[in-house]
Structure formats: structure tokens, C-alpha cells
């Protein structure tokens, strides 16, 4: 039962990582790519690490519980750090004057 749940969680996380990586490659500009890079990470790593924490509780003991708690602390850290890192990278791009891709410019912007 727990095995099934773990497999589902990890595969879903894997799928989200995969899809957002495709997103990073396909989106038209820096800002839109950060949408993919910043958001996919959080949910995907949340799912995968929750899966691992659950799997770790297979043979229940205090030590295993502590390891699972540590894994959940990693999740919490990612939860706080990921949006902040996204924000820092975006701010650096904004500061150095990266222009966002817009619909109107689509015809003339053929440089890529």
C-alpha cells in the first residue's frame, strides 16, 4: 500500500520535473522560462520527497520518524528558498534591462 503510494508520488514528481524542463526549453523568453523553472521545482520536489519520507516510514521506529522529519524540513526549506531564488534571478535580469517577449513583437523578433 505504502509502496504504491510512494511509486505514484515519485512518478508524478518525475513527470512534473520533466514537463517543466520542457517548459524551460520551449518558452519564448527569460521571464516566461523562470515561470517554468520556479514553479515546477516546488511541487515536483515536494511530491518526490514526500514519497521518500513515506517510504522511509515502512519499518516504523523513532529513528525512521526522525529521518522522515528531516526530509520534510528539506521540503520546507525548498518551499521558502525556491520563490526567493526565482525572485533574485528575475530581479537581476530586470535590473540589466532584459525586455520581456510580447505578442506584438513576435514578427520582428527573429534573432533566436
Amino acid at each position, binding site marked *: 500500500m505504502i509502496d504504491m503510494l510512494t511509486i505514484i508520488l515519485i512518478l508524478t514528481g518525475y513527470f512534473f520535473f520533466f514537463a517543466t524542463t520542457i*517548459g524551460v526549453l520551449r518558452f519564448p523568453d527569460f521571464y516566461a522560462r523562470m515561470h517554468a523553472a520556479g514553479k515546477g521545482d516546488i511541487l515536483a520536489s515536494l511530491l518526490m520527497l514526500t514519497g521518500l519520507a513515506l517510504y522511509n516510514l515502512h519499518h516504523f521506529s523513532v529513528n525512521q520518524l526522525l529521518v522522515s522529519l528531516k526530509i520534510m524540513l528539506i521540503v520546507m526549506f525548498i518551499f521558502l528558498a525556491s520563490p526567493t531564488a526565482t525572485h533574485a534571478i528575475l530581479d537581476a535580469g530586470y535590473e540589466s534591462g532584459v525586455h520581456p517577449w510580447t505578442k506584438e513583437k513576435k514578427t520582428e523578433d527573429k534573432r533566436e
Partner: protein
Amino acid sequence: MHFIYTFLLMFGFWIILSGKFDLFHLTLGVISSGLVALLSHDLLFKDRTQKNRLVEVSRFVQYIPWIMGEIVKATLHVVYLALHPRMKDLIDPKIIRFRTKLKSKVGRVAFANSITLTPGTITIRIVDDEYHVHALSRKVADGLPGEMEERLHRVFRED
């Protein structure tokens, strides 16, 4: 009061990380978290206003399920766009600016991170009370600041 909060936080962290419950390790934990709390209790909780912090924390905990739902929606949205064959027709990115009514620094940071976590929007920077936000489409741009600001306003209940 700040000292006790910091001490409890540090000691809880110590217990989770050490995982040993004999007297020796617990004493070491008490000594080191006491030392850290003594040195830095005015750093962690910088806000000196006399508000009831426990109430604020509990209200923030109530906010978490909603933001988790938003994270799921945001990721599905990005995945849908990333895998859509005609993705460039669907998106219409632009940068918008708006002012917030949140006053505390923690509230503003929470709001900025929440914007980044919700579908189609990421915060670029905050200048005083003005937010610069990059939105993937016009539809999500119109939805800001909206419901989220209301919720955070209730969490940090300011005057």
C-alpha cells in the same frame, strides 16, 4: 519572551537533527541552543511590536492549505502551457505594477512569494509598496492583487 521562543525553536531543531535522547546529548543541546538564543534572540524576531504572535502563526497555518492548492494549480498551468503545441498563441506576457496595502515586511515577503507560487505570475521586485509582477497572460494579470492580498491582510491583521 523572544528568548524563550528562539530557545524552543532551536532546541526542537536540535532534537530533530540529533535524534539522540540520552542525557549527554540533551544537555549539549540545551547548552548550545541556550547560547545561540542568548546571542541572537533579537535577530530572529526583529519586529518589536506587541502583537500576539501565536495567533498570527496559527492564522498563517490556516493559510497554508489554500496556498498548497494554488501551487498545484500553478504547476498544472505551467505544465499545460509547456506541453501545448501552440503555446505561443496562448500566452501574452506583460509586466504590471500595482501598490499593496500590506504594511509589515513579513507580510510583503509572504505576499511576494505567494504571487510567485500562484498560476501565471511571478514577482520581479518590490520597491517600497509597489510590486513589479510578470504575468503570463492578460487574464491572470487582471486578477491581481485580488483574493490573495485579502487573505494575507487577514493573516497579518494590520491597522
